[in-house]
């Protein structure tokens, strides 16, 4: 669908972990069409905040009553503004934008690796893949730096998804990194799995370094960069990808992504 810009009212906002919130609003047009990996731009109602530019957020969940949920963590003034919102407040929502994850993994096993606040599109993808007619076996790794930041995903991860949490401080789940758990799961794969990831750049780069083209059925990464327009106009959100003869090409994260073939992104 073509994206729509709507002023909507926040229906709910809740704190779900340290500095981490879920904000909900109703936007029926997007709710009916959006796909895992896509994102929307959220902006303040004029005069309600000193935040100037809209900010991109991946969709986290969509419920049957057209409610869209965004999971976010406070980092700067925009996310702090969002955390200060209360039900009834108006926000601008522009979406759905960008491309989506390939939902036909072509593999018997799928490994989803989400790190930190990169987890939202991974959850939406897990839900979508588990609804396939012949769903693959799905392993989901969710990593955080500390246990205090871990979002309780028990209610949102589909029951048939095998979920493993890793934390660097070991307070919740396995002590360690997403990549260590990924390595363990990869060793158990008898056929090439499909790997999807979203998280900090260093984590995605490390995941990319562990995989070899041909030995995985698919490797997709959902990337992030500072954005202004979300439509490929400002050319502000470019990601370096491999061009001809290994030259660097800059492509817009908003229109050619945010989902990229992880082997094509230049991680260094």
């Amino acid at each position, binding site marked *: 669908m073509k994206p729509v810009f709507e002023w909507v009212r926040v229906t709910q906002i809740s704190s779900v972990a340290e500095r981490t919130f879920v904000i909900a609003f109703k936007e029926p047009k997007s709710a009916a069409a959006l796909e895992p990996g896509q994102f929307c731009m959220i902006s303040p109602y004029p005069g309600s905040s000193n935040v*100037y530019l809209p900010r991109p957020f991946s969709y986290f969940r969509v419920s049957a009553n057209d409610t869209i949920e965004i999971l976010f963590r406070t980092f700067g003034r925009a996310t702090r503004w969002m955390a200060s919102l209360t039900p009834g407040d108006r926000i601008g929502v522009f979406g759905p934008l960008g491309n989506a994850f390939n939902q036909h993994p072509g593999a018997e096993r799928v490994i989803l690796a989400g790190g930190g606040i990169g987890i939202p599109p991974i959850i939406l993808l897990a839900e979508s893949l588990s609804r396939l007619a012949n769903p693959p076996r799905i392993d989901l790794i969710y990593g955080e730096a500390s246990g205090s930041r871990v979002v309780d995903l028990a209610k949102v991860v589909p029951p048939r998804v095998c979920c493993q949490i890793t934390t660097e401080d070991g307070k919740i789940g396995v002590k360690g990194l997403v990549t260590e758990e990924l390595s363990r799961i990869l060793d158990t794969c008898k056929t090439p799995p499909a790997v999807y990831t979203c998280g900090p750049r260093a984590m995605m780069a490390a995941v990319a370094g562990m995989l070899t083209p041909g030995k995985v059925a698919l490797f997709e990464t959902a990337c992030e960069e500072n954005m202004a327009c979300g439509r490929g106009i400002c050319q502000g*959100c470019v990601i370096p990808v491999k061009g001809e003869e290994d030259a660097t*090409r800059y492509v817009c994260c908003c229109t050619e992504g945010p989902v990229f073939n992880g082997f094509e992104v230049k991680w260094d």
Partner: protein
Amino acid sequence: MGLNQTVRCMGLSFQNPVLVASGTFGYGDECYDIMPFSSLGGLVTKTITAARREGNPPPRIVETDAGMLNSIGLANVGLECFLAEKLPWIAQHAGLAKVIVNIAGFSVDEFVEVGAAVGSRPEVDALEINLGCPNVRAGYIHFGADPESVRRVISGVRKKVNLPVIAKLTPNVTDIASLAEVAIDAGADALSLINTLPGMKIDVAERRPVLGMGFGGLSGPAIRPVGVACVYKVCQHMQRMDAQVPIIGIGGISCGTDALEYILAGASLVQVGTASFVHPQAPGNIARELAEYCETEGIGNISDLVGLAHQH
């Protein structure tokens, strides 16, 4: 919007005074579904250079107080692709909106080459010359900061084309009015004021500039008073020298009132830039707000307001 909002300017008829600024509306196609530019006064394209440009390394943009910094590096598809693929699409969808192509070069010759090629196309209504580029053959000084470069670029393009030539001036000079005078003497049919201001944001936690290239161009509401002052100053200077070229006001216009500030300062047309990122339909909303203002105030045509602030 039943009112006549037509603005006659540079020998062209604009259906309303609101244009979209270069670099903030791409080649018109990216946002046509949500903001068809055919309803506006005109589209100013992204800057076109002779060769395709990949642009600067990321991060290229960052928000600042009441604005943003950008360091895109004139990323564009290049002259050949623009003429073959982008321009025909723009012309096909422009309707009554005027098509203004923004061009730049890294030497006087490149400006002239690109200007001549673009200017020979019947789909183009006017050229806007981006003087905010470094002159690689003259110590990387920005063309727009050097009167002699301004004169050579504008007169060079002027001689090659029969279309209106608009000089887009940088505010990063001691006296913008004197640069405006040079541009007019060299044959500019109109002036676009202003381009972005240089700026930098430093990431304190990382102790380094946020943008990949360090410096960026500041745009958004933060620069509106600078833009309005430049328009006012140049308008005043032109009145003294008895020159009559129209001014196009640019810089931080987010609503009809902002546009009126520029018009009252002396702008015949305005361009909406960064506001399109905040709300993709901003240009259309601003055109509507201007029409509503004229209707409420009983003003027959928006052009009647141009420069009125100088009477006080």
